[in-house]
């Protein structure tokens, strides 16, 4: 009968077992400080600088690739970084610099203005999307918006090259086409990354300021004409 009892309720028989002090319990109980792979991954202080830089460059390059072929993915969102946006912003500001008609205010205000517009605009768009109920974090959104400026930067490079050959009607038409295409590409790329984080019925409300932002940058690029 005891056996049957034990068979039906297996651990009942153990309730009156006491751990007597005659049986010594020995051993080490160590709490490992995280899995060993994490430790290895975090001893990055000892690695050569070249490796660190290459790793970061590879991450940035990977994100550029994702912007070039925008698919609905979370690559930009998972490991955000602001290196790419900074690089693009500085490149854009430097390239837009030589457009002053008089020689007095060459560099200062224009560089600062482009910088301020890009970062202030990105912050406003991020705040807007968060206030509309988006689930994206502040820096993730800054990261996406910054990386999606890349097509416009490439358009600016192309525009400068086209402007080398003169600034007539044809060059203007070419520049208009290039800037419009890259503006559409930027907006499309950023919606591919940002749209998932918004509530489905408010996507248009969150995308409209992005459209305005890239429109303003596109206008700055299109109407750029260098001093001769």
């Amino acid at each position, binding site marked *: 009968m005891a056996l049957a009892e034990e068979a039906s309720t297996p651990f009942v028989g153990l309730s009156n077992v006491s751990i007597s002090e005659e049986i010594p319990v020995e051993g080490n109980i160590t709490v490992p400080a995280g899995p060993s792979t994490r430790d290895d991954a*975090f001893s990055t202080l000892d690695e050569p600088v070249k490796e660190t830089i290459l790793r970061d460059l590879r991450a940035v390059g990977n994100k550029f690739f994702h912007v070039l072929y925008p698919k609905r993915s979370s690559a930009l969102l998972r490991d955000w970084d602001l290196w790419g946006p900074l690089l693009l912003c500085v490149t854009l500001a430097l390239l837009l610099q030589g457009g002053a008609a008089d020689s007095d205010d060459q560099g200062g205000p224009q560089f600062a203005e482009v910088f301020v517009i890009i970062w202030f605009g990105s912050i406003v768009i991020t705040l807007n999307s968060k206030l509309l109920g988006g689930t994206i974090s502040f820096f993730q959104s800054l990261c996406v918006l910054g990386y999606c400026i890349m097509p416009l930067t490439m358009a600016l490079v192309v525009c400068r090259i086209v402007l080398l050959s003169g600034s007539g009607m044809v060059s203007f038409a070419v520049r208009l086409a290039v800037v419009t295409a890259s503006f559409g590409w930027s907006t499309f790329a950023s919606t591919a990354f940002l749209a998932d984080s918004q509530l489905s019925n408010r996507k248009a409300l969150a995308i409209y300021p992005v459209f305005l932002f890239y429109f303003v940058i596109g206008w700055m690029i299109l109407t750029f004409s260098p001093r001769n």
Partner: protein
Amino acid sequence: MSAGTGSRNTEPWGGFDDHLIQGGGGSAVIDMENMENMDDTSGSSFEDVGEMHQRMKEEQEVSEEAAAAEDDGADEGEFLGMKGLKGQLGRQVADEVWQAGKRQASKAFNLYANIDILRPYFDVEPSQVRSRLMESMIPVRLITFPQKVAGELYGPLMLVFTLVAILLHGMKTSGTVIREGTLMGTAIGTCFGYWLGVSSFIFFLAYLVNAQITLLQMLSLLGYGLFGHCVVLLVSYNIHFHFLFYGLWLLIGGLSTLRMVAVLLSRTVGQTPRLLLCGMLSLLHMSFLLYLHFSYHRILEGLLDSLEGPNLAPMERVARDVPEVTLNLTTRSLGGLVRAH
């Protein structure tokens, strides 16, 4: 075999100590913070792992320090033992002070930099925004009881930014390439300054004459009133006939002003207050549109001035072939206008 109250410590392995449970209850703020941090899954993996690593490093450091202090105390005798003890105490106190300061700072930050304060004003649907845009051009008939004004900030904010973009577009198509930077600053400053400044001013007047309108409602009303401005400027910066502009100014500008005036009338009592408030608003609103249209004319004249130098007499000013955007018949008609002036 009960671990009930925990103070009895019946288990050979120590049981649940009291101070562990009470510690959790006393520092509820820290617990909430930790919970908040852990629930925030939208952060980067770098952030999270970095935090955990930091915490682990701190724990390791603390335990190492404790071990080192103990060793010191045991080896060196009483004098240095006292010093070791004081050092450890000092370090603990410093640590506590740091933790307390950090806690207070993060509480203050969460209180004041909380954007959730603004969240209810952005709670709109696209269809609502669309209908409010349309309604901003339709003056209401009924002014005997207060008209409803939506208190939202998304529409007005987006309209102000759109106005900035249209201003920039206008300044560019007129061929102004000088001082590109400050044009942007001026555009943003003008539009935001108008929206915020005139709203506050009219709200202040409304407060003086005891009209029933809040600042949020005034911001919202004026913001939506800028929709008419956007439309007029978009048209008149591309198609350059003065009479077209004046017609649109009267028609569309007038409609949006009438709407705002009607809403204000419905919320004000007394003839003089109504006259004051509505007169002021219509004056400012209509003259702003005039100013926006004509301000870039002046910039264009500035461009011609700077290009041709002081030699030419004002009457001989002619629109030259400057490397500009010749998208539309703007330049040609502008040249004719400049010559006429």
